[in-house]
């Protein structure tokens, strides 16, 4: 049982903390500082490797976005930014496949060697801003991102993922999707192969929790 003075101190402390939190939340909203941990957060890592010449382009077409079923509303994309681990790859543009894209498969081609890709099965490709990402139950095919990179050097280069900024209701989020892309020029091959990066740097801490 706390003394009346102790209770007063606790109440005042709680009020101060609550006040600061409220002011900070309002400031964030006013300044539109994106939050993390939104409806598109937590997608597991995946990746692949592609060979391309040092002046060529690779458009990654494997990243699909959909809103999990436990989220009530769709989200609207603002922008995407590719996260490059090193020089050698440059952002060559980002788009979303058209709403009229082929429904034969969720992804017909894993990647393209031009930017923007020229494939009628992608439908009328559109800028990222304003694209609405549906809930998975509403549209199982989701939104297909087309993320182009241009190779500028000889070697092996890694894009560790994509930052996606989007709005959900009145809030703006910025979350990371660990879609790992490795690009090798002929000089970057190891034993004739382009060794994929496994995104370990951005991965969980399972190396530390081994019992042995």
């Amino acid at each position: 049982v706390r003394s009346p003075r102790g209770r007063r101190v606790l109440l005042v402390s709680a009020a101060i903390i609550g006040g600061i939190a409220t002011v900070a939340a309002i400031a964030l909203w006013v300044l539109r500082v994106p939050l993390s941990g939104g409806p598109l957060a937590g997608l597991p890592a995946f990746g692949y490797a592609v060979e391309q010449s040092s002046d060529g382009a690779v458009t990654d077409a494997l990243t699909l976005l959909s809103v999990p079923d436990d989220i009530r509303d769709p989200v609207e994309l603002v922008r995407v930014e590719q996260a490059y681990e090193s020089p050698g790859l440059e952002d060559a543009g980002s788009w979303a496949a058209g709403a009229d894209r082929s429904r034969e498969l969720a992804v017909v081609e894993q990647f393209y060697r031009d930017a923007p890709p020229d494939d009628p099965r992608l439908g009328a490709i559109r800028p990222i801003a304003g694209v609405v990402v549906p809930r998975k139950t509403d549209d199982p095919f989701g939104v297909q991102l087309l993320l182009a990179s241009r190779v500028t050097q000889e070697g092996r280069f890694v894009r560790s993922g994509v930052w996606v900024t989007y709005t959900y209701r009145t809030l703006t989020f910025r979350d990371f999707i660990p879609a790992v892309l490795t690009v090798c020029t002929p000089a970057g091959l190891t034993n004739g192969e382009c060794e994929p990066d496994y995104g370990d740097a951005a991965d969980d801490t399972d190396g530390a929790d081994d019992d042995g």
Partner: protein
Amino acid sequence: MLALGLSTILSLTAGVASVPSSGGIELFSASIAGPEGRAAAGARVAVYAYPARLPRGTITTTLLAETRADTRGNVSVRTRDKAAVRRAAAPDGTVHLLIEADGPQGAVTLDHQIALKTDLTARGSTPVKLRLSAAGIDTAALAAPRTSASSSGYVSKNHNCINGADVQWIPQNSIKRVDVKLQQLMTGKKSTVRYDWSNSSKTRMGVTYEYPHAKNGTIVKVKAGMSHSVTEASGVNFARGTNRNEWAAVDWEYRKYKKYCHVDTGGYHHRFYDAGSWQWRPRQWTDGNSYIPTKSTFRCKRGNTIGVTARLWVSRSATRTISGGVVVNGLSADVEQTNGSSHKLTFIPTGKKARLCGNNGYPTAATVVKEVK
């Protein structure tokens, strides 16, 4: 910076909110029901901690808490022994517990895993459901007052050690080598597959329990949760060709342990008594591995199917519970495999475009992935 400040404030307030209203650390909450499904009001619960790293010999599980369920069979299990919890916690905060519960309806014993934060508050644990079983239990004896700790001739009536101090598991000479299924490898004509597996706490295996039936003496075998296992830093690189549907499996050694209850009778007097039951638990990987053919499959949806021409690694962070993934002494138990950075499932197209589909979503995030026509 502002976001960081806000998150700090929020985590601080969350920290304040997570302080238990009564003393100690909440390990987990549970609801206890009798064999018929009705709430087991007043059921007793004892919780012990396994050592973070299992020894090769006798395993001592340390008593953390004893308590009783309320009239609706609900219980919040707390402990004041923070030091014991810290000793039992793996570096990632995982604590392996032995839970014993009993009431007039019967008893239950099982292994259970919880994850704790650095401040020892539980990380998103869901309530544990305990179903008491009367099989092999002398419920009449259970309903009667327990033998006092000071008397001699300890006879276990329900195989649990409640009202004791610790539980000890003495290794027996019975050892069995079993196949533990880890990952289903499903290829068609246009791809091969690799699964790189590392022996780590990401692989959990079922524990089974045996005791004689109170009436006829036959051995009752039950599943009793999942265990961590003794691990070494090594692994297997599984690789299979086209047109396969097989389980990648590792060869594990299970060992039988006899259960002893340890009672502190006061002063220098300690007493151990035979609880009359045994546990089979995974002891070590033998370094062996195998492939087990299966016909198990799933239907693909077009919305979960993609075309690939470059080798693709998937199913990172996916957790799959494989029902019947291990058979121990004639009893099927579960295996849980969580993939991480040291577990890579990679599909390699053989020159033509392969189509991959996921069982529960896009192949990039699905629990199980296969090649389809």
